Structure formats: C-alpha cells, structure tokens
C-alpha cells in the first residue's frame, strides 16, 4: 500500500466485508490526498454512521465519527471556525440522502468548501440490508421483501439543483477516475459532491442477484458511460459518469470574512 503514511495501520485488516466497495473508495482517497501533497495535519474527516462512516477511523487525519446523517452539520461547524482545514465528509446513501438529506441540500446551497463523498451502495449496509433512498424502484431489501415501491433520488441532480458547485459521479470499478475526481473535489473552492457507486456484495448483491464483488464491478463497467461519450449516445439508459458541474461561486467562509469586515466597519 503506497499511501501507508495516511492510514492508521493498526486497525487493519479493516471491518468491511470481502469485496466491499468502501475499501476501494478509501484506497482511492488516500492516493488522491497523497497526490495533492498536502499536510495530514490540515485534513479533517467527518463521517456519520454506517459501514461507509467507518472510513474515518482508518485515515490518519483529524477524524470525527458523528451521528447518522449529521456529518455535514458537524463539518460545517468545523469549517466555518477553521477555514484553513480541508474537510472531507464521506457518507452512506442512507446517511446522506435519507436522515441527512436536509443537511445535504443546505450544505450545497451554502457553498461551503467541503468535499462530500456519497458512497452509494443502494442499501443500508450496516443495519443489514434495508432499502435506501438510492435503492431504486423494484429492488429487494429486508424491508422491501416484495420489491421496493419507493423511487430513488438522483444524487447528481439533487446536488446540482441544491447549488453544489462541483458535482461528479463515478464508480469503484473506475479506480483511477475515482482518485482523480476525489482530488479535483478536494481542490475545488466550494461545496463539492462526488457520488461513488460502491458495491455491497453482502447486503445488496446477495438480495438483488447482482453477484459477487467482481460481478458487481463488471456491472459498473457495462452499466455506466462517460458524459457525452459515444457509448452513452448509443445506450441512453446507461448511468452517466463524469463531472456534471464545476463552477466558481462565492464560498461561504470567505463570504463570512466579508461580514466580519462589515460588522467592524472596516
């Protein structure tokens, strides 16, 4: 593991199941941070609760494992009071989109410089396979034994319309793209959202006849295409990967500095 310097080795092997995509996200994240060459001291990782949220225990950053759904709220407090910190907020799909959905859209609206990574396995992994807001219609879960009739969110659309200034999507299959997007998201001077399709062979795969981890990764290869690619044009139903939004708007912490100057009559 080349990025060993960025992990807490004593906690390995990690707690995730064999083939869990969350480990690939961690792998890519470490490479991205290493490539940026930034000091660990300036990195804070704030996570919620879920299998995905356990990622914060493995990185050798300042790390905060908080409450289910609330990671962005804790992170907002950290960022506003110490804007020089790089704040990374990995979240599960349930974490980000169900219980934490409100914090998600409001953090996007504020455009506070943080990196939200939605580790989307389309299931509540930690609690044993209940459907999530990203499971999608027709999927099976322990609480959807007859097939899910809840429709899913589109994370990219939601983040874009809520005002996130960087929005991207990729998968754990596309490991280089993943590390690249994480790096770009961290470097983005505003609120960035990266959705990563991340396989859960144990809870989603098994119940939805999606196969084992390699098969699930194969489906990310065949089931997705880059924005504006020939593949996408020929197969309009494929899930798009790529950077959907990348723009600069006034960032919240810098805006607040302006408020301070105003309040002080400067």
């Amino acid at each position, binding site marked *: *593991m*080349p990025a060993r310097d960025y*992990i807490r080795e004593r906690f*390995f*092997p*990690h707690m*995730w*199941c*064999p*083939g*869990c*995509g*969350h*480990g*690939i996200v*961690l*792998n*890519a994240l*470490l*490479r991205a941070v290493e490539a940026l060459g930034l000091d660990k001291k300036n990195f804070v990782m704030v996570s919620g609760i879920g299998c995905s949220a356990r990622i914060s225990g493995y990185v050798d950053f300042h790390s905060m494992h908080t409450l289910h759904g609330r990671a962005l709220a804790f992170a907002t407090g950290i960022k506003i009071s110490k804007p020089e910190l790089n704040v990374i907020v990995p979240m599960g799909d349930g974490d980000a989109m169900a219980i934490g959905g409100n914090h998600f859209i409001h953090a996007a609206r504020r455009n506070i410089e943080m990196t939200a990574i939605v580790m989307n396995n389309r299931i509540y992994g930690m609690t044993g396979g209940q459907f999530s807001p990203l499971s999608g219609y027709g999927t099976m879960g322990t609480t959807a034994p007859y097939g899910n009739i809840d429709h899913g969110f589109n994370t990219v659309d939601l983040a874009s319309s809520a005002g996130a200034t960087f929005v991207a999507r990729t998968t*754990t*299959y*596309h*490991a*280089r*793209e993943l*590390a690249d997007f994480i790096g770009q998201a961290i470097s983005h001077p505003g609120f960035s959202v990266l959705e990563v399709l991340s396989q859960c*062979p144990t809870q989603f795969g098994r119940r939805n006849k999606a196969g*084992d*981890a*390699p098969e699930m*990764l*194969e489906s990310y*290869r065949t089931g997705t295409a880059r924005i504006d690619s020939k593949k996408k044009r020929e197969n309009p139903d494929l899930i798009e990967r790529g950077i959907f939004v990348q723009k600069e708007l006034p960032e919240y912490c810098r805006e607040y500095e302006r408020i301070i100057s105003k309040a002080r009559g400067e």
Partner: protein
Amino acid sequence: MKNSETKTAAREHHIERAWCKGCGICVHFCPKQVHKLDEEGKACAVRPEDCIGCRLCELRCPDLAIEVIDRQAADRQGKDHE
C-alpha cells in the same frame, strides 16, 4: 510478503496476506491473469512475469492489500479498462 521470486519478473507484487479477504477482484480483472486465490483463499501473484504494470489490482483492492513494485521504477500509467 513476496509471492514471487521469478527472476524474469519486472515487477513484484507485495500482498499483505493478513489484510487480504479474498474477494477475488484482483484475480477477476487482471488483464494478464497474474493473480490466483491460493488454498487459504488469499490473493497470490502466480505469474508476476506477465504483469504489464497497469496497477489496477492495487488500485481496486478493497483491502488495500496489494502493492505492485516496479523494479524498473518506470511506471507506465495504465488506463481503466472500459
């Protein structure tokens, strides 16, 4: 732990056996079938001399257990195979 002592191999595959959970992702996706799961279900580089250095096994390993060490240090950056 070294899994290969083949003289001709340009690369070495360092596999942290204690970390590997045997998911088979490296085995399945290696374009040159370098890896195999051994009798204990752990990844093992059986044909390191065939390795083209794309590092995809390393990048996709969910257990952070694989490191491809390029003996010639010339790391050709492979692409995600699509």
